[in-house]
């Protein structure tokens, strides 16, 4: 069942040496192994778990952006028939400072506890204050309405500039600014200041013929996954806790829940369900510890909790609003001489915005001799920022890539030519410091320049074309997996990386490639935390790299184990066995993998292997995007006419899902560019917590998204893989902004570039 013809919109560019090996399975497009269950509606997601005797949990949430909790009266709710348990922060143990690195950032477990259920203060509109479990969702909802919380409302701060100003309301009295291992004096909302610096900035700007300096402002945006957070938790009287949930990382849920409940980690078993989108938003726990408390307090009954869409927007982890200042100098012949950036990111109620990652993205595409990047992690009365696909990258690239477009315009140079002249290649240093191994930025630029899109006529007035490139560092991380050989020659693969976009297909393909068997003879399963070794989260674009490597390693171990069986069968030494093209042989003997599997009973018994690896070598991802827009000058509305995304995938295991990542990242980036934003009222309450008013793109808002996969194999991976999931969301906002400029002559410096904003700019320009 392999469709191996490429759709017409796709071009795969193989780059210069080292030549890509010939693959039999990798690069084809088999149907994903979990596909049928999903198209017939039988796949089970977070909210699809129903256990006998289940109770339904609901959360009481703060109506205020900032308030002190004077008292919580649960007596009326407790008296309601059908209510079985009520939990507040008083039921949570105190948690010490403990930094947990989640792969897309780090999180302090003390703050996680405070975020789970507010202790003394509520810090944002939607902050959880209490929770109820009852025999029906309706009774739980009624009980929530009966819980009385006495608040002393405090002044709130939403904008990072206000939060940094003298006299701003301070969220945490004990917070001090961290600055490379020391703490500054005095209460503040600035959790961290970081800096990258190289060369001599003043000299660099003095060498420049052109200097462009601009300030950018971007809004808070949400991942917008279609599946709301959902979990069912069963605590037993013996201390065992079983959690079914939709998550990007079962082991992360286990560790966070163990810390928050101060429970031994081994007493928690997490069974990951299918996951309905995450994009970084399902790396941390919200409901699971609450449901566990409720399960314990209700006499050990299963408790099911699912967020409403409004709760998802108000109380999970959107990504940071930001203020970014960029100054960039270049010579007339197109050489960057100096660059400076200041990034201020809203962390929300607790430290941990992706400002560090944004600082990494902002200049990492270019060779810059003199630079300084300052980042500030600033608390605001908003939900704690979570990770969102290339966290911090889209807003950073929006700033730097539009400034570069302006520099190109000022010196009269083609924007791709300028990027080729300054773009990083192997051996160059990143703006953040370390040296690059082989990377594919230049290949993406060259492929974009060759693409017919780049020179196609725009075909009408009020139209413009934009170019932008983007970087994402990617992650490798730890992965474990195991495999058993079935008598019919099929291999059962147990892995622990939740499959969020088709990774089971890639894992099956990697194992099939390694073993020389059909991809349909690999049966991958995502299993629970008691059934596979530790796995880092599905995040940081690491799964195909890290778990893919573990699966590749499993394949090698399977071949070794099978060779031993063949040796036993043929009564020779294992070293005498050769394995090639799926066949074990020795002298006149030859058995295919499948044939040998059928004879294991006489060859020394069943075969099972496992592996656990701290993988390395994550190869940075680069992309170059082209977009054509049309602007209605009377309404300020932008129509995306054509979009082409070019990206280096290292080696594309399953090209359809690589394209899918590229297309999905572009769609999210376009939403961020044009319409998506959190809207707050004067009191700091979120007023657009719905899909009606938080406007993610519909099918009618996008054209087909053409993709060009470039393959510059990652030298740090045995198959040349690099992560592809996050890079494609980095360039779109900048590319669209550049296209809008070329359509209208207006440089937009605020995201989203929504119709009222663009209209205002157009009218201001006309008058």
């Amino acid at each position, binding site marked *: 069942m392999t469709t191996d013809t490429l759709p017409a919109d796709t071009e795969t560019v193989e780059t210069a040496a080292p030549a890509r090996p010939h693959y039999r399975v990798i690069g084809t497009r088999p149907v994903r192994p979990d596909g049928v269950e999903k*198209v*017939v509606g039988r796949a089970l997601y977070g909210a699809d778990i129903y256990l006998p005797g289940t109770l339904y949990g609901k959360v009481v949430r703060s109506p205020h952006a900032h308030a002190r909790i004077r008292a919580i009266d649960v007596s009326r709710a407790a008296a309601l028939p059908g209510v079985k348990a009520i939990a507040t922060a008083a039921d949570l143990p105190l948690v010490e400072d403990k930094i947990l690195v989640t792969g897309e950032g780090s999180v302090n477990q003390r703050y996680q506890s405070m975020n789970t259920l507010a202790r003394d203060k509520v810090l944002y509109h939607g902050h959880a204050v209490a929770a109820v479990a009852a025999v029906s969702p309706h009774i739980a909802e009624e009980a929530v309405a009966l819980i009385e919380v006495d608040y002393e409302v405090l002044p709130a701060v939403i904008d990072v500039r206000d939060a940094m100003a003298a006299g701003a309301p301070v969220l945490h009295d004990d917070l001090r600014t961290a600055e490379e291992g020391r703490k500054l004096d005095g209460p503040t909302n600035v959790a961290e200041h970081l800096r990258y610096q190289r060369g001599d900035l003043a000299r660099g700007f003095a060498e420049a013929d052109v200097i462009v300096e601009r300030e950018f402002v971007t809004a808070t945006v949400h991942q917008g996954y279609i*599946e709301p957070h959902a979990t069912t938790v069963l605590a037993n009287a013996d201390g065992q806790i079983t959690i079914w949930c939709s998550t990007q990382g079962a082991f992360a849920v286990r560790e966070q829940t163990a810390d928050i409940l101060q429970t031994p980690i081994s007493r928690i078993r997490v069974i990951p369900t299918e996951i309905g989108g995450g*994009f970084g938003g399902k790396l941390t726990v919200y409901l699971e510890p609450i449901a566990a408390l409720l399960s314990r307090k209700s006499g050990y009954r299963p408790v099911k909790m699912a967020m409403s869409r409004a709760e998802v927007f108000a109380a999970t982890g959107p990504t940071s609003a930001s203020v970014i200042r960029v100054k960039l100098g270049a010579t007339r012949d197109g050489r960057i001489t100096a660059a400076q950036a200041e990034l201020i990111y809203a962390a929300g109620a607790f430290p941990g915005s992706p400002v560090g990652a944004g600082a990494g993205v902002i200049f990492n595409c270019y060779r810059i001799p003199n630079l300084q990047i300052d980042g500030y992690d600033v608390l605001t009365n908003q939900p704690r920022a979570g990770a969102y696909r290339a966290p911090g990258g889209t807003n950073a690239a929006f700033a730097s890539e539009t400034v570069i477009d302006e520099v190109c315009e000022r010196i009269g140079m083609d924007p791709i030519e300028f990027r080729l002249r300054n773009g990083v290649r192997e051996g160059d240093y990143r703006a953040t410091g370390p040296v690059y191994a082989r990377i594919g930025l230049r290949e993406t630029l060259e492929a974009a320049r060759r693409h017919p899109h780049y020179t196609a006529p725009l075909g009408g007035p009020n139209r413009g074309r934009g170019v932008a490139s983007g970087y994402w560092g990617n992650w490798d991380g730890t992965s474990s997996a195991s495999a058993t050989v079935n008598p019919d020659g099929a291999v059962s693969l147990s892995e622990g990386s939740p499959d969020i976009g088709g990774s089971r297909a890639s894992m099956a393909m990697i194992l099939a490639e390694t073993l020389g068997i059909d991809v349909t003879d690999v049966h991958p399963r995502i299993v629970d935390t008691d059934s596979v070794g530790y796995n880092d989260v599905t995040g940081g674009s690491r799964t195909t790299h890290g778990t893919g490597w573990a699966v590749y390693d499993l394949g090698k171990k399977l071949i070794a184990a099978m060779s031993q069986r063949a040796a036993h069968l043929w009564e020779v030494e294992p070293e005498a066995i050769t394995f090639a093209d799926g066949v074990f042989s020795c002298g006149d003997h030859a058995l295919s993998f499948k044939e040998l599997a059928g004879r294991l009973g006489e060859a020394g018994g069943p075969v099972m292997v496992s592996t656990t690896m701290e993988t390395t070598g994550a190869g940075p991802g680069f992309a170059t995007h082209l977009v054509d827009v049309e602007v209605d000058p009377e309404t300020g509305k932008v129509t995306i006419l054509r979009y082409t995304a070019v990206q280096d995938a290292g080696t594309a295991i399953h090209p359809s899902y690589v394209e899918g990542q590229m*297309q999905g990242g572009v769609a999210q980036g376009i939403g961020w560019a044009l319409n998506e934003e959190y809207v707050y009222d004067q009191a700091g309450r979120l007023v657009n917590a719905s899909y*009606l008013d938080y406007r993610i793109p*519909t*099918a*009618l808002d996008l054209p087909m998204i053409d993709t060009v996969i470039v393959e510059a194999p990652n030298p740090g991976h045995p198959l040349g893989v690099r992560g592809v999931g996050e890079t494609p969301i980095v360039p779109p906002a900048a590319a669209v902004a550049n296209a809008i400029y070329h359509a209208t002559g207006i440089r937009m410096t605020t995201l989203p570039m929504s119709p009222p904003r663009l209209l205002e700019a157009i009218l201001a320009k006309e008058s």
Partner: protein
Amino acid sequence: MTSRVRVEAQINGDPVEFLCEPYQSLLEVLRDVLGLTGTKEGCSNGNCGACNVLLDGVLVNSCLVLAPEVHGHEVTTIEGIAGSDGLHPIQRAFLDHAALQCGICTPGFIVAARALLDRTPHPTEQQVRHWLAGNLCRCTGYDKIVRAVLAAADTMETAR
């Protein structure tokens, strides 16, 4: 105190009888009472299409239908889309075109696409996009979904 309502309906061709609260949505009853969890909840206010079903052949959001309203009517859910060979051509096309990533929106899209092709067997790309605009997908950018629906239309034409 409200009183429970007895409802008789045809669901995926079978006669079904259930008791529900008068204020329960069809979505809640399908999932919580009847075990048909293929119909997904994405927003419960009619903005995402994940809960799409056919009510007397008409595409609706099951979150915006009260369960008592379906008394005497026919409901088709994702579980009722496939024919006897296990997959409807639209489902087949979604698989072949990699038109799903996380898959949570997929049942809603397939039910919606079925309603489209029942009414418009040869839609243009623009018609497909317009028809599917009430179904949100956050993973795919819609490209492969639109291609799958167009391909399914071709397949169904060939089979006719």
